[in-house]
């Protein structure tokens, strides 16, 4: 009976097993093997040991793309999280027209990245672009944004903040899930507005913040489309937007150095895995799970 149940259960999960095997496990292992080979797709891979990794260690563009990506990830995740938290807290007050505001903030996060990128390119136009025109009214001379190596990454980070509505909806749901009796108890203890915020609201939504943090970091380490469209596959200007996946893409599909690209891919995987594990380890210090 138990064996039969296990068989039925596994049978129901069969689609996942097949998909995992064919579209994930096999490609992952293949990538690992390719990363140890010289491989151009057209010819069979030739095993070369750790040569690709050795070359990566002294590849300036690899390090450049890695630091660009970390810069972007830290900026985009921090600012987006702060924005979405602010929005969620504002909306969590019983404000009239809450559904309307929520729609307004959420809508941009639905934008297809391709469309959003073209739109922001248009707005970031250095000469006569709408953003610089608006800044000029405020008496500020705007930079050339996407054409200025000092501002291109910031421009992409600002665009990422525009999509904070998605995290806001998750945070808002978390806020509305906080049991009322906690606030009542805090009030009985004489806690003021600020104390209820710091000792009830914020601790109670740390799991949701943690979730958004993980998702945000994994996502922004893979940033590609925005840069590819807005600043081109070379990561212009002066490679300031040459992100990790952009570099990986160039190596794989422009230079046809698939083995080298797979080595980069595995390093990215290890970075993501490592970051997630570190965050998980530290999460016990600040993430509060209510024991039910």
């Amino acid at each position, binding site marked *: 009976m138990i064996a039969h149940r296990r068989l039925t259960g596994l049978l*129901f*999960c069969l*689609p996942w097993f097949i*998909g995992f095997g064919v579209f994930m496990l096999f490609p992952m292992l*293949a*990538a690992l093997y390719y990363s140890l080979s010289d491989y151009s797709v057209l010819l069979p891979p030739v095993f070369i040991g750790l040569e690709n990794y050795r070359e990566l260690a002294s590849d300036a563009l690899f390090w450049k793309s890695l630091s660009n990506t970390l810069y972007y990830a830290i900026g985009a995740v921090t600012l987006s999280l702060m924005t979405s938290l602010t929005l969620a807290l*504002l909306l969590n007050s019983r404000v009239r027209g809450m559904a309307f505001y929520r729609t307004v903030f959420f809508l941009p996060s639905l934008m297809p990245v*391709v469309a959003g990128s073209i739109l922001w390119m248009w707005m970031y136009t250095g000469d006569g672009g709408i953003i610089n*025109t608006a800044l000029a009214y405020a008496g500020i001379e705007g930079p050339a944004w996407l054409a200025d190596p000092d501002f291109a990454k910031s421009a992409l980070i600002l665009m990422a903040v525009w999509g904070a509505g998605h995290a806001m909806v998750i945070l808002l749901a978390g806020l509305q899930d906080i049991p009322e009796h906690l606030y009542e108890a805090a009030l009985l203890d004489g806690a003021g507005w600020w104390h*209820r915020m710091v000792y009830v609201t914020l601790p109670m939504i740390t799991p949701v913040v943690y979730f958004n943090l993980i998702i945000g970091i994994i996502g922004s380490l893979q940033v590609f489309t925005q840069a590819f469209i807005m600043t081109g596959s070379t990561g212009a200007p002066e490679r300031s937007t040459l992100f990790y996946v952009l570099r990986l893409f160039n190596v794989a599909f422009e230079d046809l150095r698939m083995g080298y690209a797979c080595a980069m891919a595995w390093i990215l995987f290890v970075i993501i895995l490592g970051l997630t594990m570190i965050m998980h380890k530290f999460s016990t210090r600040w993430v509060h799970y209510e024991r039910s």
Partner: protein
Amino acid sequence: MNAHNPLKRTSHWVHIPLVLLGMVFLFPLVWLTASSLQSREQVGRIPPQWLPRMYYVSIDGEKIPVTPPEMFAEEQLLVTPLEGPDQGRRMLVPPSTYQDGMVVQRIQVADQFEDRLFPAQLVKRVPAGYVYVREWLLSKYGTATPRQFYMPEDRISVEIQPIWGNFREAIRALTAGEEAKKQPLGQLLGKTRWPWTPSDNVETQITFLTYLANSLVVAVLSVIGTLLSSSLVAYGLTRIHWKGRETLFTVILATMMIPFPVLMVPLYSVFRTLGWLGTLMPLWVPAWFAGAFNIFLLRQFFLTIPENLTDAARIDGCSEFAIYLRIMLPLAKPALAVVALFQFLFAWNDFLAPMIFLTEPGTFTMALGLQQYQSQHGGSEWHLLMAAALLLVLPIVILFFFTQKTFIQGISTTGMKG
């Protein structure tokens, strides 16, 4: 009721930051729409203008749309050179460059430019304060030669008028091949190459409708596939109590950490071996094998459905598959709707995978088609780029407004701890 929650007090002041932030968030969308409704001549103007403007002149009762007027501070001469590079054309020159039937023209000698005198005929003098306008044409692919007018400024009238024709031109612009774009739009779309058209059919054209159909095929097939497969797996993880299902669920969740870029290179060679490159299959077939995120969403929902419903059916002798099909699926409709929405959105918005796996222009999706157009015409034609971007966004916005509740609920459950 909620009065004790410090953040659930009704306060009117909170509207101030909300309205301000709301304007910031809406601003790009408003600017997208505004730009998409302006003429080519207006869209690049400095300073930018919000409302679409059209200029008209009335001549002999005919109301002719014209380009924005160009003004001259001093008198100008309209001349037709009889020789030289601009021979036969009408050009407007300051009086200083025209003398005794000769006009200065710039010509290229080897790699240098040089000013030389050429004979020219004076057509008329354009007094100071007059403006120059050209007949306005919606499409740059027409064959008609625009008429030109010089007239006092007050004969030109301005109307606030959106140019809906931009969308027509954007649809035309999203056609592969410059030659093909010169055909009348109806005729062009009539030759559309559909996803089911044999690719050796040379009579067909890759048009906007090709991209649209490809996007829809990918989206619909992957939605169907993921609904069927993910719900099967979610059922196996929740309703059948077998040892190891919790472990399996943890493994499934962990796969969400695997970044697509790690898989893309080997997947490329897998699809190449299977002969799927150049078809739409790499984009929708994987969806038929249950994605981790969708399994997670459905599992969360299945756990909320009381066990005794399925137990009762089991006692009645129903097979597990029958219980899944007849009881669970109908009950899980709200969650299935969420999964369908997310999958549709993902398929519609995805760019990197189509970019790598769709090697044939005939298989391009909307997002890819738009990017291709942008990479060829970027930096100009912003009005058409905005109109085309809006065409990509609009289905999503419409879908959102009809399914808002499902969307918000779906995303809200995402953050819940399983």
